[in-house]
């Protein structure tokens, strides 16, 4: 996969500590252009947390994240955290770079959320339009006084085209929260696409979907990736789906990376088997 090209996304020695809980511990990984990479692991392993510091929702306690070769996020333990920091002292990073989530989205990363965060009271169409707002060219006065009719019209056409492409056009005037769960997940993906990303992060896209919807989802993700020329990084518990679509897989357990490799390699890996069996033991 590598072909000597630099990775699109590179996470370097990232640690995220909440109070005394180390949710992600010295985690490093890469995603290369045009790949579909999955992040798996038992509940509470720190997967969503990793997404959150990549997309600027949290600041990592320590570590760096590069996107398309440039430093996007970096932090080191500061203030009180210096004393409480439980991560690797040798991996302390020197830079500090802060970005808000919207700045990161503007760089070309878009995401969905594990617990679906649509704009619930708005129509599907407005959900998508709102996500296009960041690409607005006209300034506030132009837009507010309706002097940008051309642009407004173009935005609406684009939004309609996007929804049509995702097979969601027929629900465009429905209130987002009134739709079934599986559809809401797809709308969330469509909304993320409306920001015109090059890199898409999906947090458990199959959660709450029925088996048929899950089967369709695999094809949907692959098609979307081709249509929009995306690199995809996803978290998923549904193993069939993960093994089907991923080029490579990273496995987290208790915040640590315990394995990485192709689906075949991961299926063989004894640490992974142990981690998952361990969880099942604990649950039963």
């Amino acid at each position: 996969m590598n072909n000597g090209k630099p990775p699109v996304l590179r996470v370097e020695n990232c640690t995220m500590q909440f109070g005394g809980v180390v949710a992600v511990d010295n985690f490093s990984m890469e995603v290369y252009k045009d790949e579909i990479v999955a992040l798996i692991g038992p509940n509470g392993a720190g997967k969503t947390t990793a997404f959150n510091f990549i997309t600027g929702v949290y600041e990592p306690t320590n570590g760096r994240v590069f996107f398309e070769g440039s430093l996007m996020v970096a932090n080191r333990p500061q203030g009180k955290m210096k004393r409480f920091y439980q991560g690797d002292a040798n991996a302390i990073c020197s830079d500090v770079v802060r970005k808000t989530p919207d700045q990161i989205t503007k760089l070309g990363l878009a995401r969905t959320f594990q617990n679906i965060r649509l704009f619930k009271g708005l129509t599907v169409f407005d959900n998508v339009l709102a996500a296009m707002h960041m690409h607005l060219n006209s300034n506030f006065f132009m837009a507010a006084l309706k002097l940008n009719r051309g642009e407004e019209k173009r935005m609406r056409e684009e939004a309609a085209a996007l929804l049509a492409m995702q097979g969601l056009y027929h629900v465009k005037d429905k209130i987002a929260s009134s739709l079934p769960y599986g559809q809401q997940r797809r709308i969330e993906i469509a909304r993320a696409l409306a920001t015109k990303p090059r890199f898409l992060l999906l947090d458990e896209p199959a959660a709450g979907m029925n088996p048929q919807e899950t089967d369709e989802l695999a094809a949907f993700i692959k098609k979307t990736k081709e249509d929009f020329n995306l690199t995809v990084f996803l978290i998923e518990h549904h193993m069939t789906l993960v093994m089907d679509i991923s080029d490579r897989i990273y496995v987290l357990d208790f915040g640590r990376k315990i394995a990485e490799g192709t689906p075949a390699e991961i299926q063989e890996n004894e640490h992974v088997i142990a981690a998952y069996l361990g969880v099942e033991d604990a649950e039963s």
Partner: protein
Amino acid sequence: MIRLNSKTKLILTVAALGLTMLWFYHLEQNPRANGYLIKILERSAIYAVVAVAMNLMNGFTGLFSLGQAGFMAIGAYTVGILTIPVEARPNVYYISGVAPWLEKIEIHYLAALFLGGLIAAVFAALIGVLILKLRSDYLAIATLGFAEIIRSVIASPQMDTITNGSYGLKKILRFETIYTPFILSAVCIFMMVLILRSSYGRAFLAIREDEVAAEAMGINLFTHKELSFVISSFFTGVAGGLLAMFMGSIDSGTFRVTLTYDILLIVVLGGMGSVSGSVIAAFLVTGGREYLRFFDEPLKIAGVQISLFRPGFRMVIFSALLMIVVLFYRKGIMGDTEFSWDGIANFIYRFLPTGKARRGNGGRDE
């Protein structure tokens, strides 16, 4: 569902506007006899502007601000200070005199109104930088606090030669006809509607619905909250100026927190997130408040004094109304929908006996 075609709607709109104008013309023919009604209508129109502005921030952007009275005070004092006729100034500032630099400045009321809004907006921008990052309920307290600070600065003896301190201003330029406040209010509300319908309006709604998701969709929270706060405060300032012209004399007591609460009642009653709701409620509440004055007057039925009716009862009713709406009709009159002729048509249709009959026959409704 009835869908009127756009031509019918246009005709209805023009007819409604025409009738309103005709009514105003009729009222203006005899301003003395209709003075009371004219006053109520003017005040309602002005409150409608503040209510829509408050709704823009609270109902559409989801930021709970309670600073309305403060921004109205800024607009009102700007207009007051700059439109009192120069010859009348010594008389108004009879206690401490007027600041020399201010003595001769008198500007056109439209310019003064705009300036009032602008100053309010600048204040909002500065305050916003400080407080918009706070959680929503802290924001409410902080804006309330700022409104109090503004009020106490206006009333302070140090400001005597500018604001006339606690004595207040009088002889402010007044409206000559009902048309002026109505046209100005309509323009303000129309501009806010345009903003809300633009891409920025959608960004505001996105923030209201889910801040985290809005941010993840590339909407910068701070910029857009600041924008919403500044726009809202601009129009609140203009409305404060209009109120000053309406009242002719103001003092810092006019702009107490209760003024903000009155506006809040209008917004909640009309429906958080509905411009037309705010406008309708502004007229209902203001009109209701005037026409329900009899609640405050001692009432005798068959020679027996009803002790329930005495000064203050009206306000009890209005505050109870606020509670009832919040507890039982949380959506208010309009919810977050807007007035439309279709809505009216459907409303009437539902109550027409023929409508029911036709629906029973499997009429054209969905």
